[in-house]
């Protein structure tokens, strides 16, 4: 029976190792390259809120609730309950408990006309997250003009 000499076996092993090392190098480099290009950071998006000129110039009476029959503007109020740390919504003075309810109410109202202005009027203590989510709902339902009420006194 013919057997390979130890010298020949060693030589083929070296050959194999020599071939594997650069391949592993390149594979690892490619791996690192793709891991880095697929960024770990969450991508930020932009929510445009083009402000209307009336907002800064007019003394809008935001403290007075609008009359219920007035459907020219839809006023969405966000009230902050400090004791429960929860937000309470009201659309044209109709109190709603959840953001989903606000969404369905806005869905009904958008049928009247998508060009109706929606005014968001949050309490000063309402966290921005809720305000943006409500704004997002109004935009998703198809309202074109959604503006923020700002109290110039503060």
């Amino acid at each position, binding site marked *: 029976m013919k057997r390979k000499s130890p010298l*020949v076996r060693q030589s083929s092993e070296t050959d194999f190792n020599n071939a594997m090392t650069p391949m592993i190098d390149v594979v690892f480099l490619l791996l690192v390259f793709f891991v880095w290009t697929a960024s770990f950071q*969450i991508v*930020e998006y932009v929510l*445009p809120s083009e*402000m209307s*000129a009336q907002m800064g110039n007019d003394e809008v009476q935001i403290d007075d609730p609008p009359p219920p029959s007035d459907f020219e503007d839809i006023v969405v109020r966000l009230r902050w309950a400090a004791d429960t740390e929860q937000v309470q919504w009201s659309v044209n003075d109709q109190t709603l408990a959840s953001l989903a309810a606000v969404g369905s109410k806005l869905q009904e109202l958008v049928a009247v006309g998508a060009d109706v202005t929606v005014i968001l009027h949050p309490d000063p203590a309402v966290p*921005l997250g809720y305000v943006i989510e409500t704004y997002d709902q109004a935009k998703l339902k198809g309202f074109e003009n959604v503006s923020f009420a700002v109290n110039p006194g*503060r």
Partner: protein
Amino acid sequence: MQIPQHRSRQRDGINMTPMIDVVFLLIIFFLVSSHLARQESRMELELPNATSGQEDIDQETPRITVNVKVDGSMWIAGRTIKPANLKQTFDEVRAREGDGVEVRIRGSRMAPYATFEPIMLACTEAGIWNVTYAVYREVDR
């Protein structure tokens, strides 16, 4: 004595592997360093969620980024700014860059709305109508 075959093969041409290694390393180095440089310029904030957020493709518009932390402190270009000084800053940038200035509000989702009112007011007073909010898309989270 038997001479290994691969030695003679090496002499045939330049070994490309180390060169590719080095080139890839350089590419990764520059990618990582530019990536980190961009990340460091952003203040770490828990932004609000919004499904209707759009991709930030417009890199040409001159922009003022106002960062608002949970405690309500405002930061522009790495420095705190008082609400009373916002209008002056906006006026200066608008005078320098023109009418198309954008104000990007990067606010923590837990910061109270009262903090953002002076920013929006200052924008209207300075005549800046292009105000945007930085958000995360809910589907990404």
